[in-house]
């Protein structure tokens, strides 16, 4: 039970995080919500996880949950990458304005 509550809190945190990220990266947010919701479902109905795991060729339900967690981690990693890209874009805009303000033109030969 303790494990179920702990995992549920973590997955709920993922859901809230995905919701807050929806405006910036909607695809990542939707994927995170889907995976986290699936995670919550299987945490509280592990027998279903076991059945599904057997169906897709994974030995135990708990393994399936671990795999789902790995997938969530990868999605969050991708989201972090996208955040870094957004930061880089902002820095580019800033540098561009600085560069344009300091354009140099050769003095015409007299």
């Amino acid at each position, binding site marked *: 039970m303790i494990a179920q509550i702990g995992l549920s809190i973590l997955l709920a945190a993922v859901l809230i995080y995905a919701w807050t990220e929806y*405006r*910036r*990266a*909607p*695809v*990542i947010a939707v994927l995170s919500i889907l995976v986290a919701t699936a995670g919550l479902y299987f945490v509280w109905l592990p027998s279903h996880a076991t059945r599904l795991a057997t169906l897709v060729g994974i030995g135990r339900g708990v393994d399936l949950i671990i795999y789902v967690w790995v997938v969530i981690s990868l999605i969050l990693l*991708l989201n972090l*990458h*996208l955040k870094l*890209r*957004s930061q*880089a*874009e902002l820095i*580019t805009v800033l*540098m*561009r304005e*600085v*560069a*344009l303000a*300091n*354009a*140099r*033109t*050769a003095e015409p030969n007299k």
Partner: protein
Amino acid sequence: MLLGPLEAASTERVPPRLGQICLDEPLQLLSYTLEPNSLHAVVGIGLVAGTLWGKPVPSKQSKKLDTRSICTVIAAFNEAGVVGPIVSDLVRRGYSVVVVDDGSQDTTGQVALSAGATVITHPVNLGQGAALQTGLKFALQQNSSYLVTFDADGQHRPSDVTRLIDALVEHKAAYALGSRFLGSSRGMPFGRRVLLQAAIWLTRAMTGLRLTDTHNGLRAMTRAGASRISLRQNRMAHASELLEQIAASGLPHVEVPVTIDYTRYSLAKGQRLSDSLTILFDLSAQKLQR
């Protein structure tokens, strides 16, 4: 005889699409689609578009142009050894030249300035895409009528700029895209041909543009065309992004035969196979962003 990737690309008849004009040498067959889903109207065979059997004939329209209203944008990173003569040649032809020194460690900026260019310096290296966007923005601020992107490594010929501008003027296109496969290329390695061919097919799949050369840095655009370009890909993926934006703009474009001269220097600075994977990753990542 088996056709290699380049031969297949250069001999293939490419049906024109909405808003696309295709120029083929030596007959300069001009095809132009007027309406969506309409039949392609073959306007004329043997229409001479500034070129007659490879001999440049400046059009009346381009003769009237003030060459100072044509701004050539060059993105340069550590090109002090080659950028000077290129800028001098373009300036001698009367073009405005903007060199975006992309955080070079050498004297690229100073050399370009001495050769007569306006120099914009990025404080750090951001990438070719970022440098081109900076140059395009500057050229638009300077009220240039035509904007040309030109590589700093000596692969392009300044004489081809006239052909691109002629094509824009005569065909009322917004974009003139240089094609080495309609024109010629000297010293292109086999690996580069294969890489470019893969890029052509990928771009066709992503943008719907049926171009013969998708990663040619020699392009010209009108002011209206340039204002529709906003590159967010700082590095090499900008070439594909630019074509996506051309396709999205719906403005007419034209392919123009140009000559690419490969040198040991330019090949050393060019893209590698591993770069293509980075480009694919960058393009995919951008799709996930807003």
